[in-house]
């Protein structure tokens, strides 16, 4: 099918974007890489009246360090974040998550912020954002507010973005060079959407785990921090007993549903398997 008619605006600055959004309110929808919105429009599951493209806002195409945060602007394509030496050095977890997002042709155009705003329950980046304690920068004609990832992702395809707001950037916690991190997922058909996965990072000192951030995707209606699993690890030696405890905690704190790709029990089991593989840094997916 073809998209329903719409009118198109392509502002060249963030100021102009938020003015355009203020003018059109609920009728306007942001277009970033288009790799989720355009399929929905082709299927007429989305029918925005006014499409506001941010593809000309070159001021939003930046990756930079600001104090203890890595900041990624709204026009940064997934492929450019994935290959950025700054991202690889400061947020290796994000660099490890990005190759799992879609396929090269979609990463060439899709944006980091677009994936977060889209909030697909199967998407990798919302989980990476939770594990990296991300903060979304929401800009509107009224100004700017910053929302931590755990408040930003509300439910399936639902975030706390209000009409008139655009995600102008996302900031991530810089990882300590001694931290370890992993992303593990399972998918049915190569590099398409996974059925479930985990994103995690952890630090140890003298063999004792001092910090753990674990998030899961695909095993609930929205990406989820696994705080019980984290608690099972912190203070432990991340040995077999601690890993078993974390796996059990992870399985009991998720609430997956079943679909044609996998049933709920499989997904609950999977989250534990992938957490264990991630912690052991096994090379299997």
């Amino acid at each position: 099918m073809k998209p329903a008619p719409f009118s198109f605006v392509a502002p060249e600055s963030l100021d102009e974007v938020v003015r355009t959004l203020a003018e059109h309110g609920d009728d306007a929808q942001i277009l970033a890489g288009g790799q989720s919105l355009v399929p929905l429009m082709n299927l007429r599951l989305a029918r925005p009246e006014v499409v506001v493209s941010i593809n000309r806002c070159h001021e939003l195409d930046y990756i930079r360090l600001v104090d203890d945060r890595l900041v990624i602007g709204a026009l940064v394509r997934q492929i450019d974040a994935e290959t950025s030496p700054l991202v690889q050095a400061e947020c290796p977890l994000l660099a490890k998550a990005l190759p799992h997002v879609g396929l090269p042709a979609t990463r060439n155009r899709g944006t980091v912020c677009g994936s977060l705003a889209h909030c697909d329950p199967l998407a990798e980046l919302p989980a990476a954002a939770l594990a990296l304690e991300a903060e979304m920068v929401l800009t509107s004609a009224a100004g700017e507010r910053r929302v931590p990832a755990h408040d930003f992702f509300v439910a399936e395809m639902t975030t706390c973005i209000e009409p008139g707001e655009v995600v102008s950037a996302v900031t991530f916690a810089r990882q300590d060079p001694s931290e370890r991190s992993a992303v593990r997922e399972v998918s049915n058909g190569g590099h398409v959407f996974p059925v479930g996965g985990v994103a995690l990072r952890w630090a140890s000192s003298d063999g004792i785990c001092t910090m753990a951030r674990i998030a899961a995707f695909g095993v609930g209606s929205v990406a989820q921090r696994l705080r019980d699993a984290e608690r099972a690890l912190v203070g432990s030696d991340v040995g077999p007993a601690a890993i078993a405890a974390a796996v059990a905690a992870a399985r009991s704190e998720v609430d997956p549903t079943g679909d044609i790709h996998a049933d709920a029990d499989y997904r609950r089991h999977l989250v534990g398997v992938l957490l264990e593989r991630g912690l052991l840094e096994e090379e299997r997916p």
Partner: protein
Amino acid sequence: MTDEVEVTVTVNGRTRQSRVEPRRLLVDYLRHDLGLTGAHIGCEQGVCGACTVLLDGRTARSCLHFAVTVDGSDIRTVEDLADFDELHPIQEMFHQKHALQCGFCTPGFLLTAVELLERTADPDEAAIREALMNNVCRCTGYANIVDAVAEAAVELRRRSSA
């Protein structure tokens, strides 16, 4: 509400200027407005890869872009690969290795292979399969496509060292 918008793009080295409806997909713009029917339409959801073009040098699904969003871009389609009647080495190897049957998927595979071989001169089989795994072919069973890309890599290396 849906007034036509002016779009200027460079397609296969030629500057093209048109007025299009905002909802005009890039693939339809290429096929219907410019008469370049090499990019095919399979799924219109980004999954099959038949509509793949090079957008500013990188593969993109032309079914997932509006012509208006790529205003100012440089686009290459399969029509740009052959040099008059001389096939591009990747095309030549597809021909020699029997890498197509109906040919519907072929433009997408060719441009995906162009991107791969521009980035990696000497990919191993795993790298070739990884690069091609998101293009769908219902005819060949893929083995000959993988062979053709491997041979094309050899040929391109031979030419660049000659």
